[in-house]
């Protein structure tokens, strides 16, 4: 079992990154609209996942996911590559990502409502931030489990 080569922070960040990737395919937004023809009204809505919504947030969160998985993948593959900036980059980008998702709760455009994916994505991105922060602390103390 190679998992014991991972630190607690790496494990949390990696699990949260996998969760965020899965969550990214859930509905994040619902775009609604209505039409009236001859006195008959029809209202409909269509769900959009993170990838389907026209917003650079998908590219940003993909970068965060790959970055959070990289230290764990390198450790599991037995790579000894030293990346001292990785925990800082994960904490910084995931923290900003959490802020960006949180901002989407309030600024998602007219006619657009939020769905469960956005809430779960916010939690997962927050968990990656915590994992990155723990990695920074572990690097200072030199801990590995």
């Amino acid at each position, binding site marked *: 079992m190679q998992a014991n080569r991972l630190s607690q922070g790496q494990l949390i960040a990696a699990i949260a990154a996998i969760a965020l990737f899965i969550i990214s395919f859930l509905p994040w937004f619902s775009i609604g609209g209505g039409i009236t023809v001859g006195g008959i009204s029809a209202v409909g809505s269509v769900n959009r996942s993170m990838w389907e919504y026209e917003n650079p947030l998908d*590219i940003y969160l993909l970068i965060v996911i790959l970055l959070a998985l990289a230290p764990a993948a390198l450790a599991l593959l037995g790579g000894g590559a030293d990346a001292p900036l990785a925990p800082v*980059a994960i904490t910084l980008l995931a923290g900003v990502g959490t802020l960006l998702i949180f901002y989407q709760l309030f600024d998602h455009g007219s006619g657009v409502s939020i769905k469960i994916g956005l809430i779960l994505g916010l939690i997962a991105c927050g968990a990656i931030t915590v994992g990155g922060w723990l990695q920074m602390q572990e690097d200072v103390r030199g801990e590995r489990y």
Partner: protein
Amino acid sequence: MVGGRLSQGQVIAAVGAAVVLVASFLDWAGASAGGGSVGVPGGASVAVPSVSLSYDAWEAPGSVLDVYILVAGVVALLPALLAVTDASEEFSFVSAATLILGVVGVLLVAAFLTVDFPGHGLERKVGAYVGLAGFIVMAIGGFRAMQEEVAGEI
């Protein structure tokens, strides 16, 4: 003297951040339609007014670029702001953070201009390209500042 306390990389990063922040208020996307005249029966023509729509990074519906530009700009400008206020605080990871946020900013604006361009029938405007250039300068400044910190040139 502000310049005396700032390294060359920090100055470059601050200039890039200022460019990005200014660019965020320029037009990033827009469309125009109409204009000209339409012929009507009898040989007369009717003038059709032109209609144009454009928005900057802050007005883009549902986009997260505005918040990202604000965060990246503040981080890159932090050393300059501290120098202006004559503060003694120093943040050890600011140069690395500037580099990371600059590189990711380049990717985000490139995505905005290509695969994630919002709306149909809209055109890319100059603000997005200026913003892209600003993020490139910010990333170069962050990289240079990191090199200077390693070399102890500050």
